């Protein structure tokens, strides 16, 4: 058996996961892409464990541990996503900008119309949450 085929499959699957994490907007789809990346790592671990014929089965045991950690991660991640949805009525990671630096000029210039509308909503929420910072109104941030 060639070791190069499972590792190439693993590398491609990891890249697909990277694309999903970066390109998706829905938080649950981001979590799905994270699961793809974790599975790529699992495939690599199993392949090298079988390849080296580890007497302690370290790779396969670590794969089981990774699966357990992935289950814990997906449970906590979904709980956080549902909490965000309950508080904000939105699960788009692009629109959760309360912690972002909204005053950067390139962020205000590069925003599309619908994104700037969403960003204004985030600014309004940030202003309501922080209260003491002078958050500019939406008319000033729009180009």
């Amino acid at each position, binding site marked *: 058996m060639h070791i190069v085929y499972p590792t190439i499959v693993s590398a491609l699957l990891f890249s697909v996961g990277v694309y999903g994490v970066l390109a998706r907007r829905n938080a649950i789809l981001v979590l799905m892409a994270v699961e793809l990346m974790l599975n790529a790592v699992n495939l690599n671990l199993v392949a090298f464990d079988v390849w080296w014929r580890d007497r302690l089965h370290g790779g396969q045991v670590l794969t089981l541990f990774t699966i357990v950690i992935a289950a814990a991660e997906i449970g906590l991640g979904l709980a956080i996503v*549902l909490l965000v*949805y309950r508080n904000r009525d939105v699960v*788009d990671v692009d629109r959760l900008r309360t912690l972002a630096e909204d005053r950067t000029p390139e962020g205000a210039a590069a925003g599309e119309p619908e994104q700037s509308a969403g960003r204004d909503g985030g600014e309004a929420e940030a202003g309501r949450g922080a209260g003491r910072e002078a958050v500019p109104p939406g008319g000033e941030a729009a180009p």
Partner: protein
Amino acid sequence: MTGPDLVLILLGAVAVGAGILCVTTGQIVHAALWLVVSFGALAGGYLVLTAEFVAWVQVLIYVGAVVVLLLFGIMLTRAPIGRAADVDSGNRLLALAVAAATAAVLVTVMVLGFGGAHKPVAAGGGSAEALGSSVFRTWVLPFEVLSVLLLASLVGAIVLSRSDIGPGARGGGRDGG
């Protein structure tokens, strides 16, 4: 190229193709279902690699639990069931460039490192007996630590999900006790 190699390549093609469809489809429920296909193909790949126990754990945990949990999350956030327009963010081209660069680097490293490596694989290395004796002898301390972590994450998920406890709620269970 031997038979297991061919089967592994076919299963890997299914897994990668389903993964690509999962991250590019416009319907959120379909993304979860393509994730099932990808995980199933990966479980088949584990079987070809003689890791039987890991394959069945993959089917049980990922296909059985994680995807169902993701579907619950999709339903509970009232995601659009049909085709949604705004599931992709604006930086799709940048993400594609980063993913292509990652794939190029990783595949180049793997081909250069293990390009012609060939070794026959013996069956029986991944049976439940071998893995069980290994987990409960050598790796028993990480196993116990991991069970504590799982319990902690369970408690954390419950605390995050309940709305009647926490700083916003008055007269919760903590005040009564």
